[in-house]
């Protein structure tokens, strides 16, 4: 059996579009941080992207099927590292999310656990032999994602914990979710959310997390907090108009963290509806191209891996852009490929590396 892989089968088109989005991000980081203490962040972002591309090529060389065979070890290591964060993690702004590494770097295990979950879910559903999902299978899949998710919630990092959900949802959906099950889960989620909010004894969410969500419903309750941030973000986006404006919201420091979570607001303010829609289109092309790669994958596992990446990427875009335009509460989820930050950039490129990995082996077997 010939195991011939070549970079001719590498998805150069996908990489091209991804790099265009990264370029837009770097430009906007430069513009938004120009007169602040973060000035020069765009140069660091370029380094992160270059490092990400390198990591992507490396990951694409390792056969994903070999990775999938060892996934239980990765899963154990991932859960172990989350445990380590809860025990030894650095407390910063009230949450324990980072482990301090030798050399002064901070490592946030919840990001790479996301990758492991994509692979673990893919492995689980690829090995399943039923066309329709039984309740037992459903519960097992929920447990695979649920255990690390609860641990991340404990840090507490609601935003990252939520990004694990679409991995499970995509797996369950493609794995053969039945209508009854879908309805039951939707019902349960509604009741659960209601309990979290309206039964005072249930302390699943921290008060600031609740406040963020309630101020989303009524921004006037909290004019200086997250409601204020959403309001400023909407003003930034809205004042951009059709063709973009001078960006006083961004440069006047009214927009909070315009280089990370609110980068899309800053971009929309400076480039208007036309520019913002252009970026959305680029993301859409990337997602469609990924789905196409999922369809041509050599096996079920490959499809699940690529669709896992699609799920995470779509979810990030939905929540981040939704927050920027005022449809979603503030959860601290960055916009992949554009937002400033090493962890986020590296995660995206490692995920793309796995997609390339699957694509390069599409004619194998």
């Amino acid at each position, binding site marked *: 059996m010939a195991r011939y892989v070549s970079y001719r089968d590498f998805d150069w088109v996908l990489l091209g579009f991804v790099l265009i989005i990264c370029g837009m991000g770097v430009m906007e980081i430069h513009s938004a941080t120009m007169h602040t203490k973060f000035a020069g962040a765009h140069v660091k972002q370029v380094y992160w992207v270059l490092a990400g591309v390198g990591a992507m090529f490396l990951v694409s060389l390792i056969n994903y099927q070999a990775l999938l065979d060892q996934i239980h070890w990765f899963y154990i290591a991932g859960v172990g590292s989350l445990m380590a964060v809860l025990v030894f993690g650095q407390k910063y702004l009230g949450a324990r999310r980072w482990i301090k590494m030798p050399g002064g770097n901070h490592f946030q295990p919840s990001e790479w656990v996301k990758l492991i979950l994509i692979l673990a879910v893919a492995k689980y559903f690829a090995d399943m032999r039923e066309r329709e999902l039984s309740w037992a299978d459903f519960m097992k899949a929920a447990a695979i994602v649920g255990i690390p998710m609860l641990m991340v919630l404990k840090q507490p990092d609601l935003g990252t914990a939520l990004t694990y959900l679409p991995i499970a949802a995509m797996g369950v959906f493609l794995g053969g979710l039945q209508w009854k099950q879908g309805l039951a889960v939707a019902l349960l989620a509604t009741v659960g959310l209601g309990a979290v909010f309206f039964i005072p004894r249930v302390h699943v969410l921290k008060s600031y997390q609740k406040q963020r969500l309630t101020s989303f419903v009524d921004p006037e309750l909290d004019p200086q907090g997250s409601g204020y941030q959403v309001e400023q973000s909407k003003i930034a986006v809205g004042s951009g108009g059709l063709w973009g404006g001078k960006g006083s919201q961004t440069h006047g420091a009214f927009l909070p963290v315009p280089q990370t979570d609110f980068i899309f607001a800053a971009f929309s303010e400076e480039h*208007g509806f036309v520019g*913002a829609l252009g970026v959305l289109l680029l993301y859409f092309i990337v997602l469609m191209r990924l789905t196409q790669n999922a369809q041509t994958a050599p096996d079920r596992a490959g499809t699940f891996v690529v669709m896992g990446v699609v799920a995470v990427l779509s979810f990030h875009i939905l929540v981040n852009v939704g927050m920027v335009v*005022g449809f979603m509460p503030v959860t601290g989820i960055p916009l992949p490929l554009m937002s400033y930050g090493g962890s986020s950039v590296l995660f995206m490129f490692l995920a793309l590396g796995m997609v390339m990995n699957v694509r390069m082996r599409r004619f194998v077997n």
Partner: protein
Amino acid sequence: MFGRDEKVSEVRLTAAQYIILGIFLILAYGLWKLQVMESGYYASAAEKNRIRNVPVLAPRGKILDREGRTIVDNYPSFSALLLRDSSRDLVGDADLIAQGLHLDPNEVRARVRHFASMPQYQPIFLKEDITPDELQFIEAHRNELPELDTIMAHRRLYPRNGFMAHLIGYVGEVSEDMLNQPQFELYSPGDVVGRSGVEFQYNNLLMGQNGSRQALVDSHGREVGRLGETEAVPGKQLKLTIDIDLQIAAEEALAGKNGAIVAMDPHTGEILAMVSGPSFDPNDFAVRVSREEWNKLVTDPDKPLMNKAIQAQLAPGSTFKIIMSVAGWQEGVAQTLHVNCNGGAEFYGRRFGCWVKGGHGEVTLEKAIYQSCDVFFYTLAEKLGIDRIAKYATDLGLGQKTGIDLPNEVAGVMPSEQWKWQTQRQKWFAGETISVGIGQGAVAITPVQLLRAVSTISMGGRMVVPHVINPTDMPPGFVEAQHYTEVKNVPIDPNGWTFITDAMSRVLLPEGTAPSAHIPGIDIAGKTGSAQIVSLATRARFKNSDDLAQNGWFVGFTPRRNPDIVVCVLFQGGEHGRLAARLATQVIKAYVEKQRRTPQKMVEKPKTGGTVDIGGLWTEPDSDGDKETLQGGRFVLDLPKKPLAVAIAAPGLHQ
């Protein structure tokens, strides 16, 4: 059942694509709604909605004297500041700003850079206490320079001509060094804080808490509304123990001279007046002092910035003889010592001269005190030895900080064998003890130390902590104020201190060393001192230069028993103690005359029964039974619950 190679449901993959498309359509709709349909509304909101944090500065607490008269006040003054959230090119505008505010453009740029890492909503202070024409410039350039703004602040107004400057201290912008120290961690850059004196010591009480106002401003910098305001908490008003009338008398006494005057209530340790000369004008320091001005003050040989009352460490000269007398009495040596002074005496093979060349003749302790006979005290020192002298001097607080509530008090030196070994790794020479006997040699004390030591002796051993604020006036739980009311008891034989203070009261009489300082009708007990700063021989070599003139000292109190006030004077270059005594008696005279003018309440009747406190004086024979001495004491009397029946008419009438 299907195999490993069976594909994932094509229908579901397509469904996922449609879901993604749906998400993107919703997001695109969100953008369309904000940027196209409602863009006019948001564009005007961006113009209008600009929140600026404007600090509301808390006025510093006033400083008052013991009777509530104002010593330090505030006055309103305007400061120019630079706002950074108005998306202006601050560096480019620096030239125009500098021109209008009479600043150096490079300094403006440097300040912008210096504060670059601070949060955007914090304005940069450009110039404080701006003149009316600079204020006019800012008002006139509202449109060209929207980033310029003014803020009204309360500025310190200090008494003129350096009145009380050392005690009050001054304020200034918090320095980088201070910000790095843990005790100042709550200060932020730009804060005006106390830098010396009471302003420094009680800064936390005086400073108050700045508030802030979230103002809504439009793109031209005009305030269009307010979001909220946290009010400033004004600083606490501080009442000192100083009596301005007495302070004025002390300032006048020391005017144009070099030295210090401190007056204290020996019962409580309350400082009534404190002057150090020469002085400086703290109004010059209220914001930022210019470099030349500062250098001039720092390099001045007369040390105008030093509070000599607590920071000058000098030989006490003959005033030390009071401490010697107490030590000698307690050891049972002084009361029986008879010395024949013929103008000097030889100790350990070296001749020590008396200040009266012809000698004092037959001298006992009493005459030795009021005539300040050196030979008597040389002999006493020889008999006591340095360690016994040091023990009593240390018990009386010499060579240690008094704990006065002013910053940077120094400890001085009270030498002993142990001290010499620890500091110089040398053995003590017996000859040095002889010099110490008249307050020369290695003894170095501060005026406030001498004041406290003599206050303790005058009160029969009751030692107080000198302080300038009223401890009962402090907020609850203010720990610092607690120890100012502490009283230590130094055991002194009552016969000893009455004998010594009686002898001290003859110092200002015709037979004493300072008859010219005598004030008729006021009973002052005191002691003069003249301390060499170099030996007489050295001074002669420098042709008796004034720079090397002797320091005059005087420490005294009134009245002789149960005194109301103790005064210590250091007159640097004053040559002789009697000149210092004249300064001290000016202060004492002002005190006594004020007391005589002010009607006193002898007994205050409590509102509900109970007891009253009455002081009394009487004479009583000594334990020997032959000599009557004056005694004083306090009596606590029970008041009858019902007032005594008073006759309203002669018996038998109006029945």
